[in-house]
Every structure is written in C-alpha cells, then in structure tokens.
C-alpha cells in the first residue's frame, strides 16, 4: 500500500478530479494548502506588484494498493501538467509507504480497507 500525496495548482483541481474518476480512483481527500517551491508569481494589490512568499496550492491525498500506484500517478500527471509541456509551479507528487489502513466502520485492515 502506498500513500500518494500530490501538490497541484488550484486551477487544475477539476481536471485532476475528472482524470482520477475516469481512472476509477474515487476515494480522495482534498485540502487547500499554501507553500513555496521554485515558482514565483506576481500579484497586483492596489496597483502595486507584490510577490507572495506563500502560494496557494491544492493537496490531494490518496491511499492506494500497489497495483494502482501507476494508474493514479499517470492520471495526475496527465491532468495537472499545464500547456502540454508543463510549467514551473505545476506541482509535485510524493509517494510514501503506507504501513496500515483501517476502515473505522468495520475495523477491517490492509488492502481491502482502502
């Protein structure tokens, strides 16, 4: 089992969700986060250019069985990359080993609980 954490652009959320649903990955957690990577953006505030030090992003967390890791990653890659070739700021995907997964309702553990 793996935990896939993707940090993506806010604007790409709809596309990524659609791609995941199409790949039959329907159990996800989404949150609004902010952070800093290579991307630098300029925003206007009352006519002044400001460079926010923290940029808003979307974090998607998905727990998957090993067989689904590639499917999930490909779906996110396809949908979160902008303009075909990709741009700085499109985000990152982290894959971490997942020690255990427990469904609270039944107490089931492991791959079937995902």
């Amino acid at each position, binding site marked *: 089992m793996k935990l896939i954490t993707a940090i993506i652009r*806010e604007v790409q959320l*709809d*596309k990524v969700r659609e791609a995941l649903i199409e790949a039959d990955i329907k159990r996800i957690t*989404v949150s609004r986060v902010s952070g800093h990577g290579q991307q630098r953006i300029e*925003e206007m505030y009352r006519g002044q250019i400001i460079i926010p030090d923290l940029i808003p992003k979307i974090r998607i967390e998905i727990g998957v069985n090993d067989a689904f890791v590639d499917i999930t990653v490909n779906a996110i890659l396809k949908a979160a990359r902008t303009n075909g070739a990709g741009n700085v700021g499109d985000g990152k995907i982290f894959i971490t080993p997942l020690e255990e997964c427990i469904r609270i309702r039944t107490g089931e553990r492991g791959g079937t609980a995902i």
Partner: protein
Amino acid sequence: MKTFGKRSLLILLLLLISSAGLFAADNTHIDSGATAWMLTSTALVLLMIPGLAMFYGGLVRSKNVLGTIMHSFVAMGIISVLWVIVGYSMCFGKNVLGGWFGWNSDYFFLKGIDTNIMDAGIPEYVFTMFQGKFAIITPALIAGAFAERVNFKAYCFFIAIWSLLVYNPLCHWVWASDGFLFHLGAKGAIDFAGGTVVHISAGVSGLVAALFLGARRGYPYQVIRPNNMVITMLGAGLLWVGWFGFNAGSSVSSGLSTAQALTATQVAAASGALSWILIESFHQGKATALGFASGILAGLVAVTPAAGVVQPYGAMILGLLASLVCYSAIQVKNRLGYDDSLDAFGIHGVGGIVGAILLTFFIRPSWMKEAATAAGGHWSLWNQLGVQGLAVTIAIVYAAVMTYIIIFILNKFIKFKSSESDEMAGLDRSYHGERGYGMLNPS
C-alpha cells in the same frame, strides 16, 4: 476673447434658465412627508443591490464569489451613469419613434430638472434617483441565470446595452404617462412596482442568456454547492427589507396607498416563505434555509406588480401560489437540464408571471369600480385578465427577442462565455485577480 464672450453669454443664459426654474418651483409646494419617504425608499431600493450581491454571492462556488458579487456592484456603476445621461429621458420622456421609448432633452444629463418639483410634491431628482435604482437591479438580477461562466467585460457591455434597449423601452411603455401599456384597457395594465418591467423582463432575458451560453463546466453531473449560505440568508434578509422601498415607494406618495402596498408586501413575503418550506418538507423531508429564502423572493416577486391593488388576503394567496409554481418550475428545470444557475428565471420570471396574471382575481373592489367608470360603465375581471395577459406576453416576447439579438451580436465582438480555463480558475482570479476568502476548503 471670442470664446470667453460666448461663455459668459452661456452663463447668463443658464442663470436665466435656472432663475426661471426657481420661479416655477415657488408655485409648487414640496410635500415634505412624501419627499422624506421617497428619499428613504430610494435608499432602501439601493440596499437591495448589495443584498442581491450577497444572495447570489453565497450560492456560487468560492472561486466565483467576488465575480458574482461584482455582477451586482458593477451595475450600480454602469447603470447609474447611463441613467443620468439618457436612461431617465428614455423612460419618462415623451413618445418618440412611435412610442418605442421616450425622449425629453430636459432629462438629458438631468440638466433641466434642477429645480423641478413634481405634482406629487417631491423634487424630480428624488423620483429620478428612485427609478434609477430599479434600472440598476433589473440587469443585476439577470446575472443569476448565467452565474459562474460569463466574461466580465462582455457582461458589462451586455447590461449597458440591455438596459438601453430592453429595460428603458419596457419601463416607458408601462410607467410613462404616455406609454401604451399604461393605457391598455380601462385603467391600464397593472404593474405597480415592476412585475413585468423588472422581474419578467430580467427572468426571461436570463433564461435566453443561459440557453445561449450553455451550461457550466461539469453541470449537472458535478455537484455545484453554495460556498456560504450565511451570506445568502443575510442577502435575502436585505432584499426583504429593501423591498419595502421597492413596493411601498412605488406609490410615489406617503399615505394610504403606501400603507396598502407595504402591508401586501410583508404578507406575501411571509406566506411565500412559509409555503416554500412546507412544500419542501412534504416533498424532500426537510425545511431548508435556501428554501425559506427562495420562498421570500417568490412571494415578494409575485406581489410586486400587485402591491397597489390587492388586499392582505390576496397577497397571502399570491405568496402561496408563487412558491408553489416557482418550486415546480425549479423541479422542471432540473428535469430539463438547462443551467439557470441561481434560478433567475425560475423565481423572477415565473414568479413575476404568476403575480402579474393572478393578481386579477384579488383586485380590491374600489379599483374595479374606478375602472368600470373609466371604461364607461362596465369592466369585468375577465377584461382585466385579458389586459394583464397581453402585457405579460408583450414583455416576455420583447425581452426574449431583444436579449437574443443583443447577445448574438455582442458575442461576435467579445466572447460572452468564459473560456474553459477562465471558468476552471474561477471568475475571481480570471477577471479580478483576487480571491474572496483566505484559506477555506475548496468547494
């Protein structure tokens, strides 16, 4: 030197004109009671526009909240300016072009009314500002039909042109003393505060625009939920309060007819809201806050044309019927699958039609007597029903056809619908470069 001479001549002329106006003013007495109430009403109707902004703003997704609020706010800017330049003249001037709209060069930039006192005893400035607020809210109502997917620049041009070509003519026909609907039948088509002019025209135009633009991305399979029902409820509350200016102010006096309109308004709003949550409870099992707010609006919209002629029992029944019909209209919309996002047609269009037609059955007897005298002896309920039906049909057809033409032509110059990427990013970011909320969860 020559221009200077010309200018001083002009100033002299202006002084002469204004002093002539002053003499005229001395002859007409200002009714301070009526003026005070009309000033209050003007402010109350203006309050409805931020109310509408909040009502609509809460119902969209968080990425569109500012864009949606701006649809109402920018109307306060665009329409107010247009109203002063030509709007008031087009609505309340003398018939021109066969009565298509009005024109009076004194009203151009309101330059000739500086000292005018109307027969009702109020300064004409008050009346024009009061009427101007109606002109603002009408195009802002349309925005509910195509929320979350419209280009801001195109929207600005649209409401400006729509106001000139749809609102001003309709307003002239119904409310100007030489408008043809004002004289239809024995005592005119009844539209006390804007059932046809405001709500039917906005609702129908909204429907046409929503059909032309097509649905939002992901509609209807993707669930699109309100970002903040709390501001929606506050907005509905402000609309209810503001509606007292809208309806009771439309008597353009401060007396008996004002009180009658005020009472009808309160009764219809309450019965509409109650009916909606009752219907909803039976149909879906729960009384929702959005349902209550929708019921308030349905009742208020239906009583708008009727407030001057119905008694409280009539207003109560109108509120109930409006909620029943509007609720059904929204169910039908869900079946048909077109995307009237915030039900501008479902509530304003349908509710306006219900009110304008069914008010016939609740007209107070004294009005019918006056109509009979005016008609030369006999005027039945069915005669008036015919007049109401005709006025409503004219409003629907005119608004629908003109809106289609305006959007069709405008769309050739500026794409009316947001591009897919703008729509996904949200109106706030795409057109305003801002965000409504800080760090709320995405919706």
